[in-house]
């Protein structure tokens, strides 16, 4: 008999700051209405999100975004995340070009990075946001090396986040619409 439900929740590492009741994992599922496969998928997608939140990839803002999803807008989170990656991809290539084409143009670099940081903040991409902030600090100090290093970190966080969110959405899709219907209303 698989361990699902609240017992499973407790076994997941979570930071004390992780709010109970918000971004809640398993609502009470009626096993008779959901196949075992779906239940397991739901658990795994929740775990995936909780780990992402617990490890700081995503913060409370991501939960806020999820709260905006409902029957009227059932794919909202994925749509926003897709727009984020479209936007951030563009901004990052702007920065990449600017680093090359406009050496030591800290104002320009900072302006682009400010936009990227804003986007990260909007979806709760906290680790990536922190790297953006390091970059801006380096700009403020006129530190080219620092900027270059930070930018590499920004790119890395971007790639990791993309991976995590992609698998999260994939798991959600596997969980199917029944999972969404049983999501607790906050």
């Amino acid at each position, binding site marked *: 008999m698989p361990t699902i439900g609240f017992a499973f929740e407790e076994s997941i590492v979570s930071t004390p700051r992780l709010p109970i009741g918000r971004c809640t994992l398993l609502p009470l599922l009626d096993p008779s209405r959901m196949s075992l496969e779906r239940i397991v998928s739901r658990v795994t997608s929740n775990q995936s999100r909780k780990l992402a939140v617990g490890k700081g990839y995503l913060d409370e803002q991501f939960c*806020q975004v999820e709260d905006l999803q409902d029957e009227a807008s059932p794919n909202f989170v994925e749509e926003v995340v897709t727009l984020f990656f479209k936007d951030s991809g563009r901004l990052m290539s702007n920065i990449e070009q600017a680093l090359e084409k406009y050496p030591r143009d800290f104002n320009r670099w900072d302006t682009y990075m400010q936009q990227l940081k804003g986007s990260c903040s909007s979806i709760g991409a906290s680790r990536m946001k922190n790297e953006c902030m390091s970059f801006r600090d380096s700009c403020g100090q006129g530190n080219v090396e620092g900027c270059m290093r930070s930018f590499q970190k920004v790119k890395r966080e971007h790639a990791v986040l993309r991976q995590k969110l992609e698998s999260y959405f994939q798991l959600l899709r596997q969980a199917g619409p029944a999972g969404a219907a049983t999501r607790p209303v906050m």
Partner: protein
Amino acid sequence: MAVAIEAPFHVLAVDDSLPDRKLIERLLKTSSFQVTTVDSGSKALEFLGLHDHEDSPISTQSDQQEVAVNLIITDYCMPGMTGYDLLKKIKESSYLRDIPVVIMSSDNIPSRINRCLEEGADEFFLKPVRLSDMSKLKPHILKSRCKEHYQQEQHLQSNSESNNSSNPTSENSSSSTSTNSHKRKAVDEEILPHTIRPRHS
């Protein structure tokens, strides 16, 4: 007793960031506002019926009806025209200045916030904007509509009083009416308590 269903308030949201536009749109719709989003200050002014180098409306064709905007919410940092520049243009326009304006910014800079408030912004939201922030919008809309309604009543009163005599104040009132009637046309219909309109979703 018939329940009056008023048309939802219409908010114009201005933000150059695509994900942010999507978010603010959702936040506003979830809070029962009708929403139009644009990606720049100049497009906002265009939507509001203003070229950015004039302070009076673009001459509209007689059959073209302006959509009433009850509140403008704009990002501060935008390329070209910033949210602050947009705010200034709106406040400089006798036609638009009564529409409440809210500024959003991801940077918490007190001098920036003060500057906006001094220029006439009604509220300043720190990004990321939350659902709880939405409840702060309606009071500003209602306050500005009360003011407008009051001004309208004053005008109606002075008009009826001056019907039999020429009166310098009536000239003032009618000129202010003509500049504001553009905006008021749609709003008039909304103020009447017994107006029943279909809900926009």
